[in-house]
């Protein structure tokens, strides 16, 4: 149950990729037969991606993943619009793939406002509006948070940015393939996605760039991706992204509804069976698959590993920082104290999960939490 960290490659997706891993190995930028086959496959994947997002194919640029897409969007717009201004607005709960590029820009003379969130993790669109100044060139607010699953009011923020003439980027890595994402309806200017979050391959993603939006290239070199992203195309990966996004878009709403029902059962069961627990993230405006808790008096990694031994994959904090002891910046932004933030557990459901999986977790989780609490000096102190 860690579908937010990564997902399995769907057999249909692998099948679509196979020709480009075997016979059709051409370089998509060469002129002869194999090269043209590769080019056509890349363009078909671009069309599929565009269709899934309600975009034009020329607005889709393939990258090596969500992280590169975020880096490119933020640094690319910042440097391209530098003469207009040097102020950027983002939130305190963004993924590191957004926060760290922002911190990098601060070292290069940019000013960044990191907006706070409420205790459910929601950004207030009014805060965005108030933070926009004369020299603001970019606002970047994530579509859905990777830890606590909260879905941000992106359409409203996009509208505010549009009115004020500021470009708006959203990191939709956790959303695409899981909830409907339409760039036209949302009114966003740039949007990042990553294939391995929706049963596509790892190491491939895309950046949507609305027509007319200027941004500097980030990876310079050959003329690939219409001179905006250099490097020999990862043809198999791109084809996999295209196949996966098409699959994920089909019957998206029914699938999301099924998963959300499982999620609600899981959340309800945990809140009922385990004392001293907090549900993190908004109760309803959250990703269909996400359930996120803080269990008081215990620490996340030990909980996680106990569950792993019992066959349940989960995450504590974000996947990237597991193994480090720094408490998650997202949980701290919600206002949780350190020792509470340390006891976090994320369970993320996907297409493969069933009622039985949820029942099994509801069976083992309470006893596991209890076992660890019996070892905890904080719990002992509380019992007095």
């Amino acid at each position, binding site marked *: 149950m860690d579908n937010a960290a990564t997902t399995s490659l769907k057999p249909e997706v692998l099948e679509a990729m196979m020709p480009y891993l075997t016979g059709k190995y051409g370089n998509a930028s060469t002129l002869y037969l194999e090269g043209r086959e590769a080019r056509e496959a890349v363009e078909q994947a671009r069309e599929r991606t565009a269709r899934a997002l309600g975009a034009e194919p020329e607005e889709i640029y393939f990258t090596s993943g969500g992280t590169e897409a975020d880096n490119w969007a933020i640094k690319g717009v910042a440097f391209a619009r530098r003469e207009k201004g040097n102020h950027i607005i983002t939130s305190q709960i963004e993924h590191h793939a957004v926060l760290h590029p922002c911190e990098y820009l601060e070292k290069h003379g940019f000013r960044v406002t990191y907006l706070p969130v409420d205790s459910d993790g929601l950004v207030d669109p009014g805060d965005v509006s108030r933070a926009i100044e004369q020299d603001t060139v970019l606002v970047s607010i994530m579509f859905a948070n990777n830890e606590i699953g909260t879905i941000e009011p992106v359409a409203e923020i996009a509208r505010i940015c549009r009115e004020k003439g500021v470009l708006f980027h959203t990191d939709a890595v956790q959303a695409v393939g899981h909830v409907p994402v339409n760039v036209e309806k949302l009114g966003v200017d740039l949007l990042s996605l990553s294939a391995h979050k929706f049963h596509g391959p790892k190491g491939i993603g895309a950046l949507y760039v609305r027509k007319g939006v200027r941004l500097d290239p980030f990876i310079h070199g050959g003329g690939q991706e219409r001179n905006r992203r250099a490097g020999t195309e990862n043809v198999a990966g791109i084809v996999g992204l295209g196949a996966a996004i098409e699959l994920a878009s089909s019957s998206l709403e029914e699938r999301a509804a099924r998963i959300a029902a499982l999620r609600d059962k899981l959340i309800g069961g945990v809140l009922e069976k385990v004392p001293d627990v907090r549900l993190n993230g908004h109760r309803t405006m959250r990703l269909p698959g996400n359930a996120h808790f803080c269990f008081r008096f215990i*620490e996340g990694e*030990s909980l996680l*590993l106990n569950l792993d031994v019992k066959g349940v994959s989960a995450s504590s904090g974000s996947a990237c920082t597991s*193994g480090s*002891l720094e408490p998650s910046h997202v949980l701290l932004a919600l206002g949780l104290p350190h*020792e509470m933030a340390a006891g976090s557990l994320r369970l993320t459901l996907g297409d493969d999960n069933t009622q039985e999986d949820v029942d099994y977790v509801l069976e083992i989780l309470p006893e596991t939490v209890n076992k660890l609490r019996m*070892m905890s000096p904080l719990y002992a102190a509380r019992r007095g």
Partner: protein
Amino acid sequence: MYTEKVMDHFMNPRNVGEIPDADGVGEVGNPKCGDIMKMFIKVENDRIMDAKFLTFGCAAAIATSSMATELIKGKTLEEALEVTNKTVAEALDGLPPVKMHCSVLAEEALRAAINDYRRRKGLVTGDVAPNKIEVPDCKPDK
């Protein structure tokens, strides 16, 4: 990532709990760092007859607590003070580099418990050896 020994001491930790009439209690760590370790010892004739622990922390913290209590039981205080974080880590067949600081925590808890015992006996003054040590740097050693 973890050795079998670590996993064993983590999943089936030895000597969990409190000793209500302990002769020495040491508590180290800081909830901000994600680790708190409390060690209880029972001493007779300068020898550790029993040891127990409570730990709030990651798998490595729990396993090192468990191993540390196992290692010191039956040892004299002098011998116990020779148990270092390396001894504990080696007894567990090693720890991942980013988790080595957890074994330091176990060493500190042990020292704190022994110091507490000595303080209670009037052998040292409270100022010199507090039984509660805040481990200053809780970042992994990377």
